[in-house]
């Protein structure tokens, strides 16, 4: 029983005669890992946006666990994404001036009046797991590798069933990138979450380090699988 059911998706941008993205179908099983690769401009980010409900498609269907994202309202997709998707992005998108712990908690804090104590201890646990020990430190003073690890902890806080990472190692040096890649796959496996990483970093694409992950190749808007 696939957890992702994507069919007949086509995205067109005005002024382009060819669709930016045309994917006849993709299914992912629960807990499955997939690496999405392809040259820049191939539509990777657009594809990830579709999967995480940041964008919706006019044609076709994207459904997770039977929930059709196209049928949800804008706020409904926000709610769904907050509950089910953990996002990690190339530029971290941490908020300077707030501590590592506050950054991890921020999305959840904005969703409710009172933050459950359990969530706070879970945030501290996750930060420990990704190796950030000084949780009160302002994120602006962290190294880039540390920043991305805080972002990983943030993505996992709500125990999402889906983790989506867009070039998570592209702006890191090799050692930090390796640590982040390992954390992402390791933590996704621990949580049993479905992981989709867009990257052309050999850390993810190399068969040796890829492990069981499926390799999806996106080229000129169409998807192929190795």
């Amino acid at each position, binding site marked *: 029983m696939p957890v992702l059911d994507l069919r007949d998706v086509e995205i067109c941008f005005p002024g382009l005669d060819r669709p930016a993205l045309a994917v006849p179908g993709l299914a992912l099983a629960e807990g499955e890992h997939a690496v999405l690769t392809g040259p820049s401009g191939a539509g990777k980010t657009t594809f990830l*946006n579709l999967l995480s409900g940041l964008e919706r498609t006019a044609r076709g269907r994207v459904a997770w666990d039977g929930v059709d994202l196209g049928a949800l309202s804008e706020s409904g997709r926000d709610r769904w*994404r907050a509950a089910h*998707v953990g996002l990690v992005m190339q530029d971290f*998108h941490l*908020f300077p*001036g*707030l501590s590592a712990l506050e950054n991890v908690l*921020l*999305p959840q804090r904005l*969703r409710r009046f009172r933050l459950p104590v359990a969530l706070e201890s879970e945030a501290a646990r996750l930060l420990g797991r990704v190796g950030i020990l000084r949780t009160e430190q302002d994120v602006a003073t962290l190294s880039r590798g540390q920043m991305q690890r805080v972002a990983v902890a943030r993505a996992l806080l709500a125990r999402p069933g889906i983790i989506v990472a867009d070039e998570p190692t592209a702006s890191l040096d090799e050692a930090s990138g390796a640590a982040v890649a390992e954390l992402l796959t390791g933590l996704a496996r621990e949580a049993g979450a479905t992981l989709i990483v867009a990257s052309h970093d050999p850390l993810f694409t190399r068969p040796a380090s890829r492990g069981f992950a499926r390799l999806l190749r996106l080229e000129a808007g169409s998807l192929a699988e190795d």
Partner: protein
Amino acid sequence: MLRFIAADLRRHLAGVLAILAIVALATALGVAVTLQERTLRLGSARAADAFDLVIGAPGAETQLVLSSVFLQAAPLPLMRGSVLAGLLADPRVAWAAPIGFGDEVEGLPIVGTSPALIAGLGGVTEGSVFARLDEAVIGAAVPFRIGDRFRPMHGHASEGGEVHAGVSCEVVGRLKPTGTPWDRAVLVPIEAVWRLHAHAATEHAQKDGPQAAHDPAGHDEARPDEVAHGAGDPAFHVPLDPAALADPGAPGLPAILVKPRSVADAYRLRQSYRGETTLAVFPAEVLTRLYGVLGDARLVLGAVAYGAQALVGAAILIAILVHVLQRRRQIGALRAFGAPRLAVLAIVWGEVFLVLGLGLLAGIGLGYVAAQVLSSHVAGATGVPMPVGFVREDVLPLAGLLLAGALIALVPAVLAYRQSPAAALR
């Protein structure tokens, strides 16, 4: 959410402070205009409160009130001495007191009057009312002590006045504080002023003609070559003579302050003393006319202030929109990570409104301080206490400004609300 807003404000502290200062200054301008206009009105109204009716020779009403009630010395025409006699005998009059000016001591005006006025101003708190021609009662704020002696200076020191030689007055009492320019005046018997000036005038009567002989108002300017002997102490060391005031042949007077027995009497006296030889006026009516002018000035300045506020509002709106556009990625990321749209709206609105609201409150304080400073200068220059204060009618306009701030803050907030998170991240 508040921590997030605080962190963002801290990061842009310089810009935030600049916007805060601009909002504060624009608000302060309007607040200061409103407060200052009200202060001038209430200060002058309260300073005139003890004086219901002023009677003088026909001329400028405003000048008469300014000179007699606010003690802003200026040459006034004189009316016949018999006017006072008539008023003293009038059953509609509770009390009537002459005033004569022209002398000063250490920059304080010396006012010649009668004990009736001292009683009318609330009496003395210390010592007693003058009983002799060489005795004086000082206003509450005059830096003399009971028992001090001084020599009256004729005319203003700045205009080359001279001391009335040989005459020295003793301070025998201190007036109750009145909150009026009279707190800084030195009161002497009007007869002393008459005698002093009659004596000095004989010195140059031949040069100036007969008019000057009956001129206690200070028209007879001191001349460098003049040697005023003044009256010797013995001539002034005599008791007051109440009959001298009631004498129809008494010297002319620039002004008489009148306390009518009733409101109806006040209107009747005003009517009967408005004629060819006298002018009767309520200080209140002169002030009311001035308030009309002041009200027009307030409208103009108020419009200027509103214009400034509108311009500031527009400029700030642009600055904030630019700021929000620069934060598109950050706002988009918030949404992408699961912040609800309403939280985004609230954050942007709250942040902008916080800055505008704080600027507004600071502006109210600043306007108040500005009005205080300005008023204390006016009070120092005129001796009229200037009460600066807010009234309950001020709440609505200020609430309106706050509301305008809330609406302005809504513009970038809605912009952020409508922004698609994916578009922001692309």
